[in-house]
């Protein structure tokens, strides 16, 4: 026979062994002491927090023959031993997940009337009760409300929301909590000691962290790591087996986001995954780290408990990160982890999330930064002359050709209304003039405006207005730009304008080799 899994071997045998659920065990023990056992209990809570274990403890305790109620379950009387060895006749454990139907409940109802065979009470543990069908729940209602005096029900579920209100109201409900990191670590240490396994405390803490508050998960992980009981288990070994990326990798990746260093970040992800880190797990670790940075950044350092050297790293990064960049990085990684599509390259979602989080600063992509406006895309790339441009419209957002100012014409257009408003304060005539101008392109740090008529060109180019306009641009766009004004030829203007205003038409002309034969006003 294979050795028993540790989480089965170390199932709590007394109420003291149940960790992190004092609010429940205390209530139950008080009830036992005062002999005020209710006829139905409903245990709910996340997986691995002790629902089934507590249910069995309760079954033992109410049937235990020890004279002192405080000492129950004693684990020595015949009832306790019977339960421990899984042969106690009056403990009926029903797996509601595979016995979902109304017939299973009817069977239960038929047998419940018989008095217990060896103990005081017949205990029905219905595990995974949320899987009962609607009819099964309804069939249980009357029995659950008024069972025979010798029967006690314990219902256990991870999904309390799926249990009908009529069932809930007939039971005494206990909610099990996730167990705290410290308690799990302590429990793991105790188990490791009894199993004569030597393991680094930091490794135990890593395991407890991975277990996310579920005792069963944590003990399973510990079990998984102990293959050879004589071997000393170090933090590195544990990390390798659990597929956890080293903390260093996580910190460096965050640093790569700060530095906008795409090649380094991608290398980091690939080497971590090649080194055995589970990509999704790695993503979660990155989120956790960024979250701590965010907490330090917004709420001050008190919110994060970490070792001093780690805290120093977090504080440095918190200072280097912009809040917006930090939030968008967390969102990007969170989306990737939530909606994971691994496929053939398991690390791909991580890589994309990483690139998404550095993008806002690394590249100015018009599409990402500018709210869509109807003329945005096509006008960018329409050259002034009427000849059908040889260069077709790019379908993807235009590559940022001008890097001098770091601005694209799309951004200027998006801000155009604000610029008009701000212009009024600078020069009274400016807004009216600008009504006739459209931002055409940006060359280096020069903004080129197109106007319909040379009069407007002269007026805008007058020194006072030009200076005012430059100030306005600086104020709104935070970039200093030179101004040029060009007059668009009226004939050219119409065709170009039509194309610019109509995406579909432009597409037809330039992609599908269409021709405009006539222009109608």
């Amino acid at each position, binding site marked *: 026979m294979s050795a028993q899994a540790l989480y089965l071997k170390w199932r709590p045998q007394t109420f003291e062994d149940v960790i992190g659920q004092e609010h429940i065990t205390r209530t139950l023990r008080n009830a036992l002491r005062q002999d005020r056992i209710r006829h139905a209990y409903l245990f709910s809570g996340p997986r691995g927090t002790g629902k089934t274990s507590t249910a069995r403890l309760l079954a033992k305790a109410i049937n235990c023959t020890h004279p002192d109620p405080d000492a129950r379950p004693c684990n020595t009387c015949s009832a306790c031993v019977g339960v421990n060895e899984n042969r106690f006749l009056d403990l009926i454990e029903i797996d509601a*997940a595979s016995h979902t139907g109304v017939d299973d409940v009817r069977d239960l109802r038929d047998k419940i009337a018989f008095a217990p065979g060896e103990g005081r009470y017949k205990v029905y543990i219905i595990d995974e009760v949320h*899987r009962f069908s609607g009819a099964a729940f309804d069939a249980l209602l009357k029995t659950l409300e008024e069972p025979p005096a010798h029967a006690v029900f314990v219902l256990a579920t991870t999904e309390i929301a799926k249990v009908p209100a009529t069932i809930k109201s007939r039971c005494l409900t206990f909610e099990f909590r996730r167990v705290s990191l410290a308690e799990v670590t302590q429990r793991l240490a105790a188990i490791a000691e009894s199993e004569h396994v030597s393991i680094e405390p930091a490794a135990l803490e890593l395991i407890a962290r991975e277990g996310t508050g579920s005792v069963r998960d944590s003990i399973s992980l510990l079990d998984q790591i102990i293959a050879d009981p004589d071997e000393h288990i170090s933090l590195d070994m544990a990390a390798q087996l659990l597929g956890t990326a080293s903390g260093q990798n996580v910190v460096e990746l965050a640093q790569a986001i700060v530095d906008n260093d795409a*090649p380094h970040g*991608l290398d980091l992800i690939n080497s971590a995954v090649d080194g055995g880190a589970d990509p999704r797990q790695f993503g979660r670790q990155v989120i956790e780290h960024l979250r701590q940075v965010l907490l330090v950044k917004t709420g001050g350092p008190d919110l994060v408990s970490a070792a001093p050297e780690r805290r120093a790293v977090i504080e440095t990064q918190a200072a280097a990160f912009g809040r917006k960049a930090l939030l968008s990085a967390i969102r990007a990684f969170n989306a990737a982890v939530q909606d994971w599509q691994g*496929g*053939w390259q398991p690390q791909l979602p991580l890589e994309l999330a990483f*690139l998404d989080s550095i993008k806002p600063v690394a590249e100015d992509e018009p599409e990402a930064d500018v709210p869509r406006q109807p003329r945005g895309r096509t006008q960018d790339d329409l050259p002034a002359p009427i000849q059908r441009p040889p260069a077709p*419209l790019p379908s*993807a*957002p235009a590559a940022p050709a001008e890097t001098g100012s770091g601005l694209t014409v799309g951004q200027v257009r998006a801000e155009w209304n604000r610029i008009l408003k701000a212009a009024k304060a600078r020069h009274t005539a400016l807004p009216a003039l600008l009504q006739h101008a459209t931002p055409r392109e940006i060359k280096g740090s020069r903004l080129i405006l197109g106007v319909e008529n040379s009069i407007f060109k002269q007026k805008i180019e007058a020194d006072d207005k030009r200076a005012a306009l430059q100030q306005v641009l600086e104020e709104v766009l935070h970039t200093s730009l030179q101004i040029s004004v060009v007059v668009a030829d009226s004939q050219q203007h119409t065709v170009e304008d039509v194309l610019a205003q109509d995406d579909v038409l432009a597409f037809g002309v330039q992609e599908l080799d269409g021709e405009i034969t006539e222009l109608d006003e």
Partner: protein
Amino acid sequence: MTAAVNSGWPVIGHEWAIAHLSRSLAFDRVRHAYLFTGPGMIGKTTLARVFAASLNCRDAHAPCGTCRTCTLILKDGHPDVSIVEAGQAGGQLKIEQVRDLQQTLALRPYEARYRVAVLRRFHEANPAAANALLKTLEEPPPGVILILTADAADLLLPTIVSRCQPLPLRPLPVEVVRAALMTRGAPPDTAQTLAQISGGRIGWAIRALADPAELAQRAEWLDLLETALQGTRRERFALVEKLSLEKTGLQTMLDFWVGYWRDALLIASGSRAPITNYDRQAALQALAERAGMGAVQHALDATRRTSQHLNKNVNTRLALEVLMLDYPLP
């Protein structure tokens, strides 16, 4: 972890997992339920089968691979080893199958030491089936070992995962795949190319080695992508029209395309991470330079999205046309 235990298991790669399993065997610490996760065709079921043989082989160097037990198990013919899976890939594993399995598992082993159940691609189990397995998985009858395989642990119910010992398997290093192909008689350069392209999916590499059509198909799909990228929109639409007539394999095609774009992205970003489509390096380089990182990333996102959409049974032709619009023009 030191891979000191030389296993001699007939499995390619996954040394750490094998070391772990054989050590568990040696120290009699075998768990009652395992969960092997990792991308398709990296050898999860093979490992499960070999592990089942090791559990039951009576030879000192289990699995010996020659005794009756081993031969039967490795050929899926042993009465005490049941393999349960969805009717076809992409189908559903049903609750009836789980109930049947529970019936079988309740009986003592017929001739072997352990009754082993391998539940393949368990992420395809429907919720009722997965839930029905919960109690069996937590406390199976004595002498029963359950092995689940799945693409990723996150695709399963957390209650399932927490009852198993997970072994997250990873795609194999290119070097290991290459060596394995060489021992199967592949010429060195074929082995190298296949190993690179397989991205560590040994199952695919071996199949491609045995069946040249597999490689030809890949080449055809990538050629098609490259042609499309050179063409105008009109030409692209014409390609799509032809493509949308063949429904099967489009998903795989898009997987190849995703890999292709990812390589372009790696090159565009200047990362040193190794690319998969090694044989297309020149074209990829040109594409990365021409399109730039933003456009490549956009195309990659679009390809992934399209792949998802096709799974949801959208209009194939329309989806592919939209995809073509998202690709950068020459």
